[in-house]
């Protein structure tokens, strides 16, 4: 099967991988370069668990062809914390107990980060809209909304916290 070389940055680090014919970005990130933070929830683009940022825009990696990220910047939850510190969004999720099983959390965090990067002071409605493509079966969403709002008040929009 045809293999295509792909070069991109993942959380600021140069990566190179071979994308097989029709391989999606989620699979390449997880199995190709070993970033296990994006999750498979549906493979249909409906749950948001695989959300990553491509050049700053939130994208569903399960519906993105791996070869299309050639030359682009990909960001995942693995890159949210730098060194020993965690990102204010992660901190706010912790303080609000905004995760139970934790499976939707990485995708939820990336959707929230994309929001705060473009709108540092979102309203509750802005937050609701931003995470509407991300499903959570455990929390009832309220703690997640509160966490994103709290993070926005603590300046999460600044790069790396």
């Amino acid at each position, binding site marked *: 099967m045809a293999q295509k070389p792909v070069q991109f940055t993942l959380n600021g680090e140069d990566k190179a991988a071979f994308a097989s014919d029709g391989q999606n970005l989620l699979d390449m990130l997880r199995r190709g370069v070993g970033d296990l933070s994006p999750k498979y929830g*549906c493979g*249909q683009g*409906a*749950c948001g668990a695989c959300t990553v940022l491509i050049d700053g825009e939130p994208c569903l990696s399960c519906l993105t062809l791996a070869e299309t990220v050639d030359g682009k910047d990909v960001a995942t939850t693995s890159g949210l914390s730098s060194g020993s510190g965690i990102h204010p969004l992660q901190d706010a999720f912790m303080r609000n*107990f905004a*995760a*139970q*099983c*934790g*499976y939707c959390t990485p995708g939820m965090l990336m959707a929230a980060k994309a929001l705060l990067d473009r709108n540092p002071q979102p309203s509750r409605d802005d*937050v*609701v*809209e931003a*995470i*509407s493509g991300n*499903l959570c*079966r*455990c*929390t*009832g*969403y*309220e*703690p*997640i*909304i509160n966490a994103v709002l709290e993070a926005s008040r603590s300046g999460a929009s600044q790069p790396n916290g």
Partner: protein
Amino acid sequence: MSKHRGKGFACINYPIGMNLGGDPSQALVHSNPDGKFMVALSSIDLGQGMKSVTRQIAAETLGVPVEDVYVDTADSDTGPHCMGSFASRGTHRVGNAVIQASQEARAVMLEAAAEEMEVNAADLMTDGKGNIHVKGAPSRSITTMEAAQAAQFKQGKTVSGRGIFLIPLSDVDPDTGEMTPVSCFAHAAMIVEVEVDDETGEIEVIEMNSSYEVGRALNPRLVEQQLTGGAWMGMSHAAWETTEPYYPERDHGPVDFNHYLMPGPGDIAPHNIAILERPAPDGPYGGKGPGEMCANPVLPAVVNAVFNAVGVRIDDLPVTPEKVLRGLQANGGAQPQARR
């Protein structure tokens, strides 16, 4: 054509653990040389907080800080048998097993400390901060680390404990249904306010007010997580979800989240919760399991609220706009009931 508001009430109780018993769970606890404890389970954390609640239970029982305890779940080579995480049995069954294991390990730790301090173990107590001292004489103390080191390197004792919890399997009388189902029950009451659009048949949940009796909130934040998320799921069962929209026909079954509907973050309603705690005599520190029952009162409360709003009874779940409109049509329009 207008929107009508109504309130519906429901209350429930819920059996904790596998109904007839016969479902053991085990725990093993041991200390490393620094007096830090590992709890080995084969129980499952699927988000409900099994690792966290058993960690607190172990720390409380051992008498050490929670930071000095770590729970490992689910490796069949190291974790002893557990039936599993279902039937609201985790906190109750596994919690009790962890208490028993922790008590055994604590006894060894205190014996080791007693030998080291040349006192009677019965005269010792823990302060929950990592120290063991003589009752009434806090200054005569050693650390749990010193006790663990003495046990393992001087006395040749393993600071460890085994625990199991089992309610023996109950028989059932075939003719009367006499049985001994579960040993404790959680309780809840729920009032849901809905708004029904009598033109579209759509309903919107406006507010939920509830009370949940959970035995003891072993960790209040974990309880809050369950109740908030569980009530959301109850709301979802009431008016959104079905795998077979035309049950018993199997047609039109959903294959993705565009067809299997659940309330999104924009559909949620304010939920005001009161938590009551009447400890269960056989629960770990009185705790019952809140994880399953939290959804149950919402389903009937929603249909009762729809009746209160427009006088339509929905006896088949989920409440869909189609069913509401058919009911309104049959009644000749909305018939709002007494406001509450």
